[in-house]
């Protein structure tokens, strides 16, 4: 017997979400599950593997310090990038929030514009600043301060700078969204009770904006640690990160089981940080930051 459809019938909801749900299952959940299974496959030769189960890949990962070194370096670079982003990004976010400037929307629009510009282009454009024929070197030589161009490109500093550049808008927007959520009367209250502006900031504004800062830090850390293009364009071979290692293992050596193992490692490690974050902060702040 057919049941009548109610107004907000769960069956209708399932039909509406079906396309996205199927996409998520077949392109996100299933791939990661298959990848996890692949870590136990046996590597024969480039591009060939058998489904004979082995723990050789995991054994190799845990015993070869080459891999753990890569992982630690990647986490270090990600952490440095995220912290610098947090420190430098807080000021603009606070400024946009607190300013009485009439064209505040322009400052916000300028934050969104970088999202529209190709990430590859934004990254390689640093070559025009830092390169031997870049703005800085040419200006310094013209001024007679240096004779030979400074080697500023193709090192870890350049990689971090490039990542800072593409992550900064994420950070500023996250902090800004969180500042916008603060009830401004709380700050006037603090001031009227005798707080200096510095005290009011330290005791009221800063603590209340921490969720946004934390969301920004997590997002920047995860995106930096998972990056592939920036180290390739702005770093030398020594500055490769875990993402480059994965790409080379799969596309270069065609060692799929090892590539899958490394991907799962990165997934688990970054997932751990995200899980710790959501344990204390919940998902809602990240959602707000991404949705703009």
């Amino acid at each position: 017997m057919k049941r009548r459809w109610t107004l907000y019938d769960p069956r209708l909801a399932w039909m509406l979400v079906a396309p996205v749900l199927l996409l998520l299952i077949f392109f996100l959940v299933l791939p990661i599950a298959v990848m996890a299974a692949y870590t136990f496959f046996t590597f024969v030769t480039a591009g060939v593997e058998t489904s004979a189960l082995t723990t050789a890949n995991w054994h190799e990962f845990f015993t070869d310090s080459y891999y753990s070194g890569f992982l630690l370096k990647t986490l270090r670079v990600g952490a440095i990038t995220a912290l610098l982003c947090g420190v430098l990004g807080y000021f603009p976010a606070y400024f946009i929030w607190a300013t009485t400037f009439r064209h505040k929307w322009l400052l916000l629009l300028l934050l969104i514009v970088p999202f529209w510009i190709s990430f590859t282009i934004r990254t390689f454009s640093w070559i025009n600043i830092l390169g031997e024929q870049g703005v800085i070197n040419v200006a310094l030589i013209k001024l007679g301060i240096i004779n030979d161009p400074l080697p500023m490109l193709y090192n870890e500093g350049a990689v971090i700078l490039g990542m800072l550049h593409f992550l900064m808008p994420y950070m500023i927007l996250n902090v800004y969204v969180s500042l916008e959520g603060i009830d401004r009367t709380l700050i006037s209250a603090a001031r009227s009770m005798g707080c200096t502006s510095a005290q009011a900031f330290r005791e009221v504004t800063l603590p209340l904006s921490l969720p946004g800062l934390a969301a920004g830090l997590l997002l920047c850390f995860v995106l930096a640690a998972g990056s592939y293009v920036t180290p390739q364009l702005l770093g030398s071979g020594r500055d490769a990160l875990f993402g480059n290692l994965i790409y080379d293992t799969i596309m270069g050596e065609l060692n799929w089981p090892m590539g899958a193992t490394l991907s799962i490692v990165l997934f688990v490690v970054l997932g751990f940080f995200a899980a710790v974050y959501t344990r204390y902060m919940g998902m809602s702040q990240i959602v707000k930051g991404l949705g703009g």
Partner: protein
Amino acid sequence: MKTRRREEGRWAWRLTGFITVCVYIFMFAPIVATVILSFNASMFGGFPMTGFSLQWYYKLMANDAVLAAFRTSLWIALVTAMVTTAVGVVTAFALVRFDFPGKQALSTLVILPALVPETILGVGLLVLIKSIDQPRTMLLLVLGHILLAVPYVVLITQARMAGIRRVYEEAALSLGASRFSSFREITLPLLVPAVVGGALLAFTISFDNTSASLFWRPAGVETMPTQILSMLKISISPEINALGTVMILVTVGIPLVGGLILQSLTRLKRRGQPTEEAR
């Protein structure tokens, strides 16, 4: 005492303003340098400027590989934008208006593609199709891009939907409209800003995607970003600066023009019917 405190506050505020200006310069200086250099007459892709020239743009127009990559990216981005917007809006509608078991889990799952690094998504999908012996196809690439864009469309639409009261739809339903026509006549028009915003974002996400496309593209196919990457591996030619400038014009111009059209549309509509939009 009081004046000294105020003085301190003023200095802190000035410092904040100064750092803000520096960060904005930091964000835009490389882009400005690239645009300027694209008009450089010099043979080398760097400073100093030796004169104004459009030669690199002419060269670009004659570069078949670049034009082919541009067309490929444009098609992929258009299809991605259309499909993602359609499925994303419907999903957001279901997530906001309905209550069903597993709703919380689904809303978390749906934003995961934005949080999981692209390298991992890229490898995962490749391993999956390798394990079932399927080749990399264009369809795979497009579906992958849709996966990457879906979280943003859903989040934008959800935020807008939360501000539209359901009584509007229910009023239409009680007056005899069908589910579909109440959605089309009431909900969808109120959602227009989110729909357009989501579609534009999906377009740029697809047009811009690099890391995942490197894994997913069919053999021999280049998208615009992968083409730029392979050109950069050879040398930094001024042609790349010109290409970068054209790309900036496309990806910044489209959303800006779209936003302006949208704004004037809503203004026109407001003039026609003075009822407020929502709330």
